[in-house]
């Protein structure tokens, strides 16, 4: 098991946002987490990414507890999260965003030898590898033509894709996507769908949350449904979607 979550609970004062959630993710899977607004999806993802600390329960990554790590330490372990509202570095161009996102790669390649690059610049070979990787990722995410544009000039969908591209260029083993499809148009969703399938063929494990059932339904191998912070159904995506409790959570009991 790549990621193993046991009895994860997060309370904010009197409010329990995530309650006793248990699930696992195997390597190479696409796992969907869905549920209506306020069901604890984003909180769960933030807990995994180290942005929030669990009240109780365990988050194990390859057998090691990562629940107490800070976000950058979690990222260094190979778990990278994108944001629901696109986060950018204002003023910087698309390719500059990607170069910042290469930080982990440089660190992994050079270790403390990085200090030597202060005076000579990056070794030519590594520099070329990174630029090639950036170009590949931008092409995959359909951002190649906007390479040198300021990122704030991108469309909303473009900003979201840049988030995915930045996450991917870190070479994560697990990419956590927080509502990647929200706010996107029909074409952009199809585009995103294709990109994520592409990523899967590259061996990346994905955990995606969304409340758009249709989009996740097509993509995810396995799903978990949350409601009021608790898991109400888990298993094959189409079975979960047909589950009475899930339908009731989305549409009210009358429709179940």
């Amino acid at each position: 098991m790549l990621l193993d979550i046991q009895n994860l609970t997060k309370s904010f004062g009197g409010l329990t946002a995530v309650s006793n959630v248990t699930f696992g993710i195997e390597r190479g899977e696409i796992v969907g987490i869905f549920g209506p607004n306020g069901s604890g999806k984003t909180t769960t993802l933030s807990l995994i990414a180290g942005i929030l600390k669990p009240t109780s329960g365990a988050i194990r990554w390859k057998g090691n507890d990562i629940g107490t790590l800070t976000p950058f330490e979690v990222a260094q372990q190979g778990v990278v999260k994108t944001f629901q509202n696109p986060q950018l570095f204002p003023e910087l161009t698309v390719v500059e965003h990607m170069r910042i996102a290469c930080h982990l790669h440089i660190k992994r390649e050079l270790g403390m030898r990085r200090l030597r690059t202060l005076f000579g610049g990056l070794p030519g070979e590594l520099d070329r590898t990174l630029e090639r990787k950036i170009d590949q990722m931008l092409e995959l995410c359909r951002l190649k033509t906007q390479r040198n544009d300021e990122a704030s000039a991108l469309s909303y969908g473009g900003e979201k894709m840049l988030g995915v591209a930045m996450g991917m260029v870190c070479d994560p083993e697990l990419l956590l996507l927080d509502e990647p499809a929200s706010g996107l148009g029909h074409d952009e969703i199809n585009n995103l769908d294709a990109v994520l399938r592409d990523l899967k063929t590259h061996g990346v494990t994905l955990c995606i949350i969304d409340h758009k059932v249709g989009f996740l339904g097509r993509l995810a191998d396995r799903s978990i449904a949350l409601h009021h912070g608790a898991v109400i159904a888990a298993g094959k995506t189409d079975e979960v979607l047909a589950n009475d409790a899930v339908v009731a959570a989305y549409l009210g009991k009358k429709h179940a």
Partner: protein
Amino acid sequence: MRYTILIGLLLALAAPAAITSDSVLSIAIYGFMAASLAVSFNLIFGFTGQLSMFHAASFGVSAYIVAILVTTFKWNFWLAIVPAVVVVMILSLIVGTICFRFKLKEFYFAVVTMAFSEMLRLITLNWNSVTNGSLGITVVDKPSIWTPSGSIAVSSGIAWYYLTLALLVVVYIVCHRILASWIGRCLAAIRLNDQLGETLGIDVFKYKLLSFAAGSMLAGLVGAFYGFYSGFVEPHYLSITLGLDIVAMVLLGGVNSLIGPVIGALVLTALPHLIELSAELRIALYGAILIFVILVMPKGIIGLITSRKHAA
């Protein structure tokens, strides 16, 4: 821009041939030291986004340590720089760790660093047995430089001119190399969106601390020279006024570059001498410039020049 800077440097190297007045030379020397301070400050402020009010303290503490080691303990000037910069490093690591662990940002960071700075100023003011209190320390020694024909004391204006110009070049190159490297990208990420940077694997705490300590150590290096040129060290070196002067220099020149602070520092050092001003009026002028720049040209002189270029 690179060629403009090189031409500026060549002009600065040739200038003493044309400067006959000692007072002009002295303005240039103070200008170079102020520029070194402003450049090192901009590493922390303009490029990492942290408004440090600790810069004057780093500068002053180092000036005191070098002065005491040389006058009381008869150390060699160059050797005395080492412990001075090391002490500044330790102080900045302590202050930085406290501020960044508590995630102090913007205004809060400025106020807390200012409080630490003021604390150190009060120590220098009241620790009479070591610092000679408000009278400060008079420094008569001059640093000497080794040449093949024996060591010569840096006492003439021309010698100080080249020494401080070299200091500025060193500070500039160190900051430039840091910013051009992967560290510079991490600093940009922290300045522009630290939360995003953190999820991309950047250790925000470590790089903030690195920038703060590196900038402060460079300020310490400048402080070591300053006391020896001016001939005295006093508690005023650690004052908030000096901290604000540096802010004004950087804002006037332009926060988004390293050359901007150099220009801002030279202008603000020369200005009071071009138009005769009393100390009170000088501070008022600084304040007025600060307000004007923030309102009308937030990117400073450099921003004005480069935007002209883009428009053309």
